[in-house]
């Protein structure tokens, strides 16, 4: 990637990722370097928030593996996302326990209020993105939603809207 074309913020992010990869002390002559791919992608998603093609390409170059090999792994794991996420990531659990306790209604209400579909693009203001996931291991609190990892239990559609409003006010 051309240095001029990327903002300094992005350059910093790439530098952070490069430092992480350098710290792994990979043996580039060994096929075992491929074993570090998921770990690197994990870090990359943490840094960039998502894994756009430029980041995947960069990782491929760093590991000296085909871009397709990176893309294949990214596409396989639900955890990895190629779309940017909002400032607040709203996860609604649709695992069995949450589902029977009405999680789907919660999800639909959040989608309606924010005007976005789950697992697609974030809200136009970039504040929220919504995704549906499976069990987060808090079945006793079902139905469960999370905002940036903070767990809210026994939510109802109405309660979910209140939570969203809280974050909207924070901005």
């Amino acid at each position: 990637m051309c240095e001029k074309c990327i903002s300094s913020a992005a350059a910093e992010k790439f530098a952070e990722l490069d430092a992480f990869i350098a710290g792994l002390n990979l043996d580039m002559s060994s096929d075992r370097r491929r074993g570090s791919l998921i770990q690197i992608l994990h870090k990359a998603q943490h840094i960039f928030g998502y894994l756009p093609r430029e980041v995947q390409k960069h990782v491929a170059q760093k590991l000296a593996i085909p871009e397709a090999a990176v893309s294949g792994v990214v596409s396989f794991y639900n955890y990895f996302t190629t779309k940017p996420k909002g400032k607040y990531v709203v996860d609604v659990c649709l695992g069995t326990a949450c589902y029977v306790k009405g999680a789907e209604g919660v999800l639909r209400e959040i989608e309606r209020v924010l005007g976005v579909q789950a697992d697609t693009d974030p809200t136009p203001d970039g504040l929220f993105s919504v995704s549906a996931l499976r069990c987060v291991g808090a079945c006793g609190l079902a139905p469960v939603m999370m905002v940036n990892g903070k767990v809210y239990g026994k939510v109802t559609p109405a309660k979910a809207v209140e939570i969203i409003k809280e974050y909207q006010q924070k901005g």
Partner: protein
Amino acid sequence: MANVTVTINGLAVSVPAGTTILEAANKVNIHIPTLCYCPDVGGGEPNKPASCRLCLVEATGIRGPRAILVPACATPIERDGIVVSTNSLRAMKSRRTVLELLLSDHSGNCLTCAKNGECELQKLAQEFGIREVSYQGVQNDFPTDTSTAIMRDLNKCVMCRRCETVCNKVQTVGALTGNGRGFAAKVGTASMIPLADTSCTFCGQCVNVCPVGAITGVSYVKKVWSAICDPSKTVIVQTAPAVRVAVGQEFGFKAGEAVTGKLVAGLKALGFDKVFDTDFSADLTIMEEGTELVNRVKEGKNLPILTSCCPGWINFLEHHYPDLLDIPSSCKSPQQMFGAVAKTYYAQKIGVDPKDLIVVSIMPCQAKKYEAGRPEFEHDGVKDVDYVVTTRELVRMFREGGINLANLEDAEFDNPLGESTGAAVIFGVTGGVLEAALRSVYWMLNGKNLEGDAINFRAVRGLDGVKEAKVDVAPGVSVNVAVCSGLGNARKVLDMVREDRNRFQAIEIMACPGGCINGGGQPYINGDRKAALAARMEGIYAEDAGKEKRLSHENADVKKLYEEFLGEPGSEKAHHLLHTHYCSNARD
């Protein structure tokens, strides 16, 4: 390794421990259906992900005494006492279920599929006697990905992963990958971008191994028919060396038998105005490339010289080795040299406007389609080569035109672009281009021809992926040469070159394992790939041995071309018409 005994359908079979059930069954001619399994996708690399489950058999003794279903292709026989039933009711029912499930998710338009009649899934449905599919469900609706050479229809993909194996392990191109999971899983590219935007070289080895119609060549056949039937056009055809030893198998000839005369007769019967030979321009290539080699060795510059006949390999170079762009020969490939000469020299000779002269190539190759479309091979809207038709597509043209090669009398190529020597025909097999060059380089350096058996450079022959040799080209002058086929092998040799530029002086590289005889446009090989390729190779060398002239510099019409038009090899005019340049196209 110790032998173990397995019982298959009541028959005791003794095999080395570790042999798979499928291999043991094959040994005693017990047929087990397979789909994803392929013993050799290229260069001896097997594909057996055991993903399709069509080879399920019932076996006891694998994990305890209970009879369980196991995939025969991937289940090794490790100990005595295993009892296998390939045709128990349970095994057959399971396989039928698997096949019906595969079919339930398969685009069912067999009649209009490019693979109709040659599809392994279709053949299985026939063998199993499938009359209805018991399962109905959602079908995938992936968009078709097309390019100038290869197209992919993922709705037909059975996820056998053969294409991925050959692309990644054999060719080390890395354009294809498994993408997504579950029902949405498919073979994709990086971020599902079009194949044309990836590091794909269009070698077409994926086309060769795809069991279904998911990866096929892009066909220009309709355009060729239209041109043939257009009275305002003069349509000439050139046919590559490797076509003549592969096309015969589709008309009942022996595998590998050269059917050159019948092929020429068939092309005439199709209605081409003149039938010419890419071998002519292969001889021409040797004159140019040989001269280049001699000059570079004398000057010690830009070595080692790499052959540049193979467009798949040139794509690989441009994608992966942009630092080595100065060393390949600047010669255009024989296909493009032919086009350039036809649209200038020949058009002038017959008094036809180049715009009204259509050049069709019959090639064993998919990458040739891409090559013909490269912008540097087009001048004032006139392409050097207008349409490329693969051997497979030519067979279909023959069938459509009601032509059976077996019923034709041999015919001769037309002149002047039809004359060739034995040195040209061996371009069709790995090692041939270098051998042809060495034969003429000897003459260029010594002013006399190689005599007797010395004309045969056996050290560079054979289907091995990498061959190295030290060859005497003049008294006291020897060159170190390497020959490799298959892009994985090319990578190995190019990495050696990166390390030590002085290790070799000349290297021949072909993208497909074995060379053009195994090109991505050749008739499908069902069964033993290596044996089939060996037969085609023998056909090539037999054709060479039987030729009156076996040295490119003795091609009278090539000599005449220089006298009347080009001047001498390496002249300014020759450079303008017959040479090209390479560009970095690094994508990974």
